[in-house]
């Protein structure tokens, strides 16, 4: 009698199949698709008091996006490009583009720092050493991001360890304000996401046959060309994956800029945070979040195009 199986659920059986489908459906609908769709819809609405939500005034508008580009109505701020004056939301646009550029910079710094170490780990170090190195890499990653930011404050604050040491040695007469110069922030962000660059790179570099390097060397290629023409093309998917992860995390970082950012320097996520916590305007915050999400998607598509890899290889 037990042999009577329902054909549905691919042999899972009705009870297990229904329970599993309900769990997965709840996750996909209530935790992934609907929240993002609601956020997108909400970003096209006016900021209304609770009583008016769902009322006749609750209609769609492009106002929030207009605000990001042009600022509040009647704002005198202008931006001049090639001699033309444009009305613009200079502050927020500045923050937005600075965040993107800074995240790209952090990604490049991380790639430059991590590539030699990962190459050493994958190709030169023995199995035991590579294993030990991997454990050492994971350890700092388990320390909370906020505490890692705090460590950089201790190091790089005006009265911090680096400044006092340099002054005691007589190399500096007065402290350097690393925080105001954004050096602390870039150092902290590059530090925080090292592991996410190294792991995909390692997986890609480890599978490279050492004979290929030997062959290139025997044919007389200098070291830089071996890396440029043999090692990097082989590790393409790993490089794309590592760069995407670091960029996404850096652009979406919130704790590091809050703790290590200078007083006048904002990160775009901080602008979003302010819409939800200080200058309450949720639809505007949702619009900014949606712009951030779109930017991230565009970045992933760009990386996929540049490196000619597919999504599966990036998300691995």
């Amino acid at each position, binding site marked *: 009698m037990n*042999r009577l199986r329902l054909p549905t659920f*691919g042999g*899972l*059986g009705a*009870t*297990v199949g229904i329970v*599993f489908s309900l*769990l*997965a459906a709840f*996750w*996909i609908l209530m*935790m*992934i*698709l609907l*929240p*993002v769709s*609601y*956020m997108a819809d*909400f970003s096209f609405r006016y900021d209304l008091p*609770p009583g008016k*939500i769902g009322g006749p005034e609750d209609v769609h508008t492009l106002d929030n996006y207009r605000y990001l580009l042009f600022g509040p109505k009647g704002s005198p701020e202008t931006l001049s490009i090639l001699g033309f004056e444009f009305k613009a939301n200079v502050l927020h646009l500045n923050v937005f583009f600075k965040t993107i550029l800074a995240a790209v910079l952090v990604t490049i710094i991380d790639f430059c*720092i991590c590539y*030699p170490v990962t190459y*050493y780990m994958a190709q*030169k170090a023995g199995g035991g050493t590579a294993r030990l*190195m991997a*454990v*050492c890499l994971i*350890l700092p990653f*388990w*320390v909370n*991001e*906020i*505490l*890692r930011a*705090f*460590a950089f*404050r*201790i*190091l790089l*604050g005006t*009265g*911090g360890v680096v400044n*006092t040491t340099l002054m*005691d040695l007589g190399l500096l007469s007065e402290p350097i304000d690393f925080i105001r110069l954004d050096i602390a922030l870039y150092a902290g962000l590059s530090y925080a996401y090292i592991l996410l660059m190294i792991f995909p790179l390692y997986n890609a570099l480890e599978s490279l046959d050492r004979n290929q390097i030997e062959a290139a060397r025997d044919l007389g290629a200098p070291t830089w060309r071996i890396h440029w023409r043999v090692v990097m093309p082989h590790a393409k998917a790993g490089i794309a994956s590592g760069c995407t992860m670091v960029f996404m995390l850096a*652009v*979406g*970082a*919130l*704790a590091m800029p809050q703790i290590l950012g200078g007083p006048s320097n904002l990160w775009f*996520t901080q602008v979003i*945070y302010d819409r*939800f916590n200080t200058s309450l305007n949720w639809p505007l*915050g*949702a619009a900014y979040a949606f712009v*951030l*999400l779109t930017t991230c998607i565009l970045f*992933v598509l760009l990386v996929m195009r540049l490196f000619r890899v597919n999504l*599966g290889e990036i*998300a691995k």
Partner: protein
Amino acid sequence: MSAARIKNAMIGFYVLLFFAWLFGPLVIMSASAFNATDFPTVTPWRGFTTEWFVELFSNRDIREGATTSLLIGLGVVLVSVPIGLAAAVLMTKLNSRARSIYYAIVVSPVLMPGVIIGVSTKVFWDRLGTATGASFSSFFFDGYFLTVMGQASFISAYCMLIFLARLQRFDRAQEEAALDLGASHVQVFLKILVPFLRPAIFSAAVLAFLTSFENYNTTVFTILPEKTLTTVLASKVRLGTDPSISALAFLIIAITILGAVAYEVKARAEARRTGAVG
């Protein structure tokens, strides 16, 4: 030959420098937990003290935040592990076209910035609560519930990936055999699949808890008036500088190192045992 040796020495030196950069900040932060200055630093060194640990444990905000984080972490484990398991098993039953769409949807929260998950969760449940006319004391407006929902949306994906890796090694013949011998589907699930997945269930639960415990970007939006350990820490670190935070950092680093050593010892013992058997 000597040129190659110089090159190897240089790369070795670079690797050393890299690890110094990796551990330097953490070592200095840990050391500052024991320095008798009012300000977290190691220069100047004013003598050894443990008063910051006493202060840490007497801090009410941190204690309450840690309790909230603990509860939310348990909630996330209870939501994410079953969802991850169900989603992974369902994935193995789909045909290849449906599977690639399904995979793209369920993996997307991993790539999405945490801030956006926080914003969308907050907006979604708030609007749902307003639309259904729910009261402000209902779960729609509860920081614990929202935070579990927000965090579990991407932590479930981590759990699913762990289960998928384990399921790849699952022999379907076991299932077939049990069914042929008259077991029900529920029995097959409980007596074959769950025991097979037990190590994965354990790792998924540990990973889910730790990820939840240290999450900030999503939590800061969904937590509403409550406070978790990370939000308490962030406001403390931002406002002022207090060596009792170094004390907390030292404890977390010490626990992490002990955990890593224990894991390593266990892995080596396991490798030796299976090596001896094989």
